[in-house]
């Protein structure tokens, strides 16, 4: 059954529309704007839910000349992700209405959250590479705004900038990868195409074309970097813990349930297209390393949200690794865990938010025995926390079991070093159990005296995580139900064939079951020694060279220190420096362009120079020399005018009256402006350095030679026929545009859009002059 375009497009557009009216709504209803967001998210959830079971592409044309269209691909995988985003979104908005009570800048907060939700739905459903990129970057942008919610705090600024640099930098890799992909796909599917759905339909042919053109590995790596940056994979995971300075609803929504999963989602999307041994090597390795590193860092964490952040990175690694394996189990692990993780991690964040909100601290060391005051919250935390640990029969267990199965299958098939895969997975799982228990420990035991009385959280804080915990419980009790409803369809979309997913509690001992047992027993058995493990792990992860954050700071500081040094050379406030650099750089670029294309030999042909032209040109050259050696400004300006008027006469001789007219009036205007300012110019500057003169002469000759070469190369041979486009302009000017002045017809009719652009340039130049002169007394003083 094909999906309905209006419903799908409506679900994506609705949040954006709501974001637009949010400031007005906020002015009317204040704090309760959060409920508007919840209603919008619920509406999207309903719209998308009605499409459950459909599969296909719907599109509406956007930029037909570039073959870009608003194309949406609806299948189980897209719907799973989109439904998660909108469903969790509804709960988060409800939670925010209470949690963000009396915060500042709420209109911006809700508008950005809504826009973010629209972008996520866009990424999930888009099937056009350009549209995918657009929404992908929009999510990064919204994340930047939301992380930096507390605009005055340095930590927020630092974290927001870091997230921006890492995720948008990754986005550039995505752009490169997508363009390469479309180039390769263009050879198979007819013409250059951005249609992801068509590529997926013909996956084998596209992959063969990629390999043939030698683009397979570059595409794979670009996609790997893009997904890794977005989904916090090692070594680009460091932005995620820093992003925890954002308000808790943001952490729960963006940095655990949705945005960080965009990378995972896209890996799953591309799996049928790029699946290969190289794919497995890259994603299984990176995923398992992230899973291990994240789990170890989570054990070391001292803050509730920091623990959850590293744990999120670890679980994202699990999903990426799952998709990395080519076996059926891999895809199942990835898709099923995406669902499970969203259902248990978002409520855990909300629980952390409740603890912070009611108790006033998020430090793990100071918290224990909270179950007495927060019983409902403790139950929610228990269900979801045990699911995070992967303890049977909680939901996380089933998907982790699938990953163990995938690693075991891969190792069993390939042997050798690939046995490291299951070993790493088990090792990471031991740490997962450890930190999950550490998290739950805040609810058990005796309540320390420092926490006197904890107020009851209000219902709108407890209900959203409660609903999610209930969902986790449902999946835990009946995993096959979740599979039947949506996971099976999602797995179908991420795998090449149509595998049957079966999950449930194990009934006999198999290698994956043994692996689970080792992980759980290992974790529980070592828990009493957690302090020593923490200290030992801390030794490892605190090593400077192993901390990407340190490298990031170094890099950024290096850039910040180097730029002012370069500034003295390039940006020293002297107009002639700017002119020198820009002219030399432009000329060098132009020349290297000619060299690269091999266009260094000018077209041969007789230059039709008459005696009159030669005379005019000679006068012009003499005037040019006179400008340079002129003893006074007046003489210089007049010589310059002579030069200009000679050029105008040359145009007349070359029968270009429009050019000549323009040259004449501009020359007159320039002369007039010189008359205005000439009295203000100093009569004597300074004795100039010989080296400076030599440099200026060199630059002038270089630029002049480049311009000369360009003219020679670009003008058609005098004897040759006019080009097709020149002929078109000449013959069509009268019948098409009704004008006999071809130059003017080109300017205002055939190429009016260019003229429009030039008018903007003129306007911007005028505004710049205004601003420069207005600001000259307010600028920096050096």
């Amino acid at each position, binding site marked *: 059954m094909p999906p309905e375009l209006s419903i799908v497009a409506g679900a994506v557009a609705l949040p954006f529309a709501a974001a637009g009216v949010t400031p007005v709504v906020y002015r009317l209803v204040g704090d309760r704007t959060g409920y508007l967001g919840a209603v919008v998210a619920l509406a999207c959830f309903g719209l998308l839910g009605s499409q459950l079971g459909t599969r296909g592409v719907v599109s509406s044309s956007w930029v037909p000349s570039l073959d870009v269209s608003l194309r949406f691909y609806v299948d189980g995988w897209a719907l799973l992700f989109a439904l998660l985003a909108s469903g969790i979104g509804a709960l988060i908005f409800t939670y925010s209405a209470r949690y963000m009570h009396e915060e500042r800048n709420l209109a911006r907060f809700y508008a950005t959250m809504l826009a973010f939700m629209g972008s996520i739905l866009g990424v999930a459903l888009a099937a056009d590479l350009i549209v995918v990129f657009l929404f992908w970057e929009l999510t990064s942008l919204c994340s930047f705004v939301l992380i930096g919610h507390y605009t005055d705090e340095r930590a927020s600024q630092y974290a927001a900038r870091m997230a921006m640099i890492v995720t948008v930098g990754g986005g550039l890799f995505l752009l490169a990868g997508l363009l390469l992909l479309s180039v390769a796909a263009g050879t198979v599917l007819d013409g250059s195409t951005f249609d992801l759905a068509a590529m997926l339909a013909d996956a084998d042919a596209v992959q063969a074309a990629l390999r043939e053109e030698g683009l397979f590995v570059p595409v794979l790596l670009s996609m790997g970097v893009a997904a890794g940056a977005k989904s916090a994979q090692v070594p680009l995971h460091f932005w995620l813990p820093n992003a925890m300075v954002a308000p808790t609803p943001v952490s729960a929504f963006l940095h655990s349930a949705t945005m960080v999963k965009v990378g995972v989602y896209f890996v799953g999307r591309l799996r049928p297209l790029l699946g290969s041994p190289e794919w497995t090597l890259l994603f299984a390795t990176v995923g398992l390393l992230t899973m291990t590193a994240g789990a170890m860092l989570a054990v070391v964490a001292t803050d509730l949200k920091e623990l959850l952040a590293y744990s999120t990175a670890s679980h994202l690694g699990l999903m990426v690794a799952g998709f990395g394996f080519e076996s059926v189990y891999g895809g199942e692990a990835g898709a099923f865990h995406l669902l499970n993780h969203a259902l248990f991690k978002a409520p855990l964040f909300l629980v952390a938010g409740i603890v912070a909100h009611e108790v006033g601290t998020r430090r793990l060391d100071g918290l224990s025995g909270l179950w007495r005051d927060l019983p409902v919250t403790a139950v929610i935390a228990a269900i979801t926390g045990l699911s995070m640990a992967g303890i049977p029969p909680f939901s996380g267990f089933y998907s982790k079991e699938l990953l163990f199965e995938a690693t075991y299958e891969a190792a069993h098939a390939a042997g050798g070093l690939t046995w490291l895969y299951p070993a790493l997975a088990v090792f990471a799982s031991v740490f997962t159990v450890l930190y999950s228990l550490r998290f739950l420990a805040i609810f058990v035991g005796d309540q320390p005296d420092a926490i006197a009385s904890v107020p009851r959280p209000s219902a709108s804080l407890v209900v959203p995580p409660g609903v999610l915990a209930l969902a986790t419980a449902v999946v835990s009790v009946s995993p096959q139900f979740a599979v039947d409803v949506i996971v099976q369809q999602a797995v179908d979309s991420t795998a090449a064939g149509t595998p049957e997913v079966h999950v449930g509690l194990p009934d006999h001992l198999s290698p994956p079951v043994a692996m689970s047992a080792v992980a759980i027993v290992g974790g529980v058995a070592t828990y009493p020694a957690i302090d020593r493990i923490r200290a030992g792990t801390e030794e490892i992860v605190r090593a400077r060279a192993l901390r990407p954050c340190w490298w990031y700071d170094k890099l950024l500081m290096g850039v910040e220190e180097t730029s002012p040094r370069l500034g003295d050379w390039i940006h020293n406030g002297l107009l002639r420096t700017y002119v020198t650099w820009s002219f030399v750089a432009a000329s060098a670029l132009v020349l290297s362009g000619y060299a690269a294309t091999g266009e260094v030999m000018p077209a041969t042909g007789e230059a039709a120079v008459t005696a009159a032209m030669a005379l005019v040109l000679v006068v012009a050259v003499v005037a040019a020399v006179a400008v340079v050696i002129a003893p006074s400004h007046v003489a210089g300006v007049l010589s310059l005018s002579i030069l200009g008027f000679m050029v105008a006469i040359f145009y007349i001789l070359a029968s270009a009256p429009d050019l000549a007219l323009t040259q004449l009036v*501009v020359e007159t205007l320039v002369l007039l402006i010189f008359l*205005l300012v000439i009295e203000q110019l100093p009569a004597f500057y300074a004795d100039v350095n010989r080296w400076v003169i030599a440099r200026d002469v060199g630059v002038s000759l270089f630029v002049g030679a480049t311009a000369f070469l360009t003219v020679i190369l670009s003008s058609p041979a005098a004897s040759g026929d006019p080009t097709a486009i020149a002929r078109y302009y000449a013959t069509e000017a009268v019948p098409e*545009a009704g004008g006999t002045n071809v130059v003017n017809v080109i300017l*205002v009719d055939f190429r009016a859009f260019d003229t429009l652009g030039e008018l903007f340039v003129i*306007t911007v*130049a*005028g505004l710049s002059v*205004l601003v420069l002169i207005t600001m000259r007394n307010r600028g920096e003083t050096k």
Partner: protein
Amino acid sequence: MTTIITKTTARIVVPIILVLAISLLLQGHNLPGGGFIGGVLTTVAFGLVYVAYGLDYLDVGVLGREVEPGTGVFEHRTVTAFQRLFVVGLAVVIGSGFGALAFDEPFLSQTFTIVEHVPIYHEIELATALVFDVGVYLVVVGVLLTILSVVGAE
């Protein structure tokens, strides 16, 4: 620069330049000329007035209004008028582009029609491109005069 010679010359020359500029603008579609050339030429005319008589002349001498002494160049009525001029110009240009959309044509499409049996001229060609060209003219005049007056005031 405000000598008698300059003033007298400007008095005679400026009207001629202005008429020439307008005619260049209007005939641009079929003969040498157009919005840009007309605009620069108009700027030259105003620049000449400015050099010969000063910035206040347009207000005081031509329009017969009072000018408060001591207003800065940015608040000067003439200069704000120049600034408004290029905004209007941009609006005309973009508006002329959107006009085509109403007839289901791409942005900035132009067309023309020939009106016959007009007295004196016999036939006149009316091109939508002229609207666009007038916009170009306004932008060029506005920007150049703004720059000229602000720089000149320094």
